[in-house]
């Protein structure tokens, strides 16, 4: 009976919402962006915008490259030469490709020089290494990112390939957007929407869901949270690949500067999703995959430099920092 009950349960998940201002000394935005290492998808939405500025466009096009190396023996990552050439310079990130964190052995290299090995029981015993059990239950293909074009020549014997992140740009017309107040994270009845409602709405927009269904609609009852306004156009951008935190930080700073000149938009959003199969979420917090491997964060940047930050994780995750 207990097993049946457990199987019927929906795994827990957490959404942490906080608000602050970019000008505050103690604002954690930079630290949280920089310690979320393995990012798969970055997207931003700018209401009342039809064309991207040159600065933003350049940043979007320069989020890569990243490198893909096949059949790399792990011992190559702990040679003195590799450590001196790449790891000691900082900003070297790596993650095994096509390994599921809940099924396969997975390896990740963090920019602080730590190599994280998430191993199944047999492999762990074979290595004879000292480790600790996962909190929640080779010859490998790896994807790398490093601030170093020497990557290509260093791994030339392993068939290294350079890849560029994929960029998708689009505009949405007559988009219903929730009304928000930067000081009201939980919303205000009749006056402003809450942070979780905003996050849901953002998901609906990027999934191309209908936002204006009637409550008695047979197919879907989802609609934009109220109160809302309709904007004539909104700019959407999505970048997918292996994206380093430094590039995301630059994007965040540029989006903050969006409001240096008066703009119609009251806010813009920047969302980042981590790799479902990364062994860590923020810093060295263990990340796992139960029914899903989500670990994502979303900034809402207001025109007065206030911001909301939402961090979401799934069941096999520590609480976000």
């Amino acid at each position, binding site marked *: 009976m207990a097993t049946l009950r457990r199987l019927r349960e929906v795994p827990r*998940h957490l959404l*942490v919402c906080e608000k602050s201002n970019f000008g505050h000394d103690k604002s954690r935005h930079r630290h949280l962006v920089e310690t979320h290492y393995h990012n798969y998808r970055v997207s931003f939405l700018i209401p009342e915008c039809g064309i991207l500025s040159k600065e933003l466009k350049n940043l979007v096009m320069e989020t890569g490259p990243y490198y893909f190396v*096949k059949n790399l023996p792990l011992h190559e990552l702990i040679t003195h030469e590799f450590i001196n050439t790449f790891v000691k310079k900082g900003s070297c990130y790596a993650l095994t490709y096509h390994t599921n964190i809940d099924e396969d052995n997975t390896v990740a290299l963090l920019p602080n020089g730590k190599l994280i090995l998430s191993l199944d029981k047999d492999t762990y015993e074979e290595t004879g290494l000292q480790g600790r059990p996962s909190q929640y239950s080779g010859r490998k293909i790896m994807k790398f990112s490093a601030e170093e074009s020497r990557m290509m020549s260093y791994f030339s014997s392993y068939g290294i390939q350079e890849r560029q992140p994929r960029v998708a740009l689009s505009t949405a017309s007559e988009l219903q957007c929730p009304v928000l107040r930067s000081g009201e994270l939980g919303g205000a009845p009749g006056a402003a929407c809450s942070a979780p409602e905003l996050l849901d709405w953002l*998901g609906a927009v990027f999934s191309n869901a209908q936002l204006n269904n009637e409550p008695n609609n047979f197919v879907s009852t*989802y609609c934009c949270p109220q109160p809302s306004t309709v904007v004539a156009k909104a700019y959407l951008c*999505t970048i997918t690949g292996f994206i380093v935190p430094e590039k995301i930080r630059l994007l965040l700073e540029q989006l903050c500067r969006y409001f240096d000149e008066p703009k119609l938009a009251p806010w813009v959003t920047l969302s980042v999703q981590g790799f*479902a199969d990364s062994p860590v979420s923020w810093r060295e917090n263990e990340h796992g995959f139960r029914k899903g491997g989500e670990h994502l964060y979303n900034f809402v940047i207001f025109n007065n430099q206030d911001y909301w930050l939402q961090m979401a994780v799934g069941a096999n995750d520590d609480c976000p920092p």
Partner: protein
Amino acid sequence: TSRFRRAKQEPNVNIPGVSRAQGVASAGELRALAESCKERDSGRRQVDAALPLDILTYEEKTLSAILRICSSGLVKLWSSLTLLGSYKGKKCAFRVIQVSPFLLALSGNSRELVLD
């Protein structure tokens, strides 16, 4: 700075439907199909089997959809769709690709990144 924490209760299920025949022609058909699954598998009357279900998106080209259901209905919906073998007399199969309480997480799937 202030923050609050909330454990959300509404998982969204990303479900592609693969049909070798005509395929599900519209979101409305998919909705009706999902309802009939639940009725059939719950073994109860129509009224008891009802759970609020939304088809948030349906893409005919890829035969994939995003469904939304309350957390208490997740297991029932997932198992019903998994066990569905035919629709209107034609063989079909459903495969659940992603499940998440956060709709934003369903707009991208890192397991679908193809490098080789």
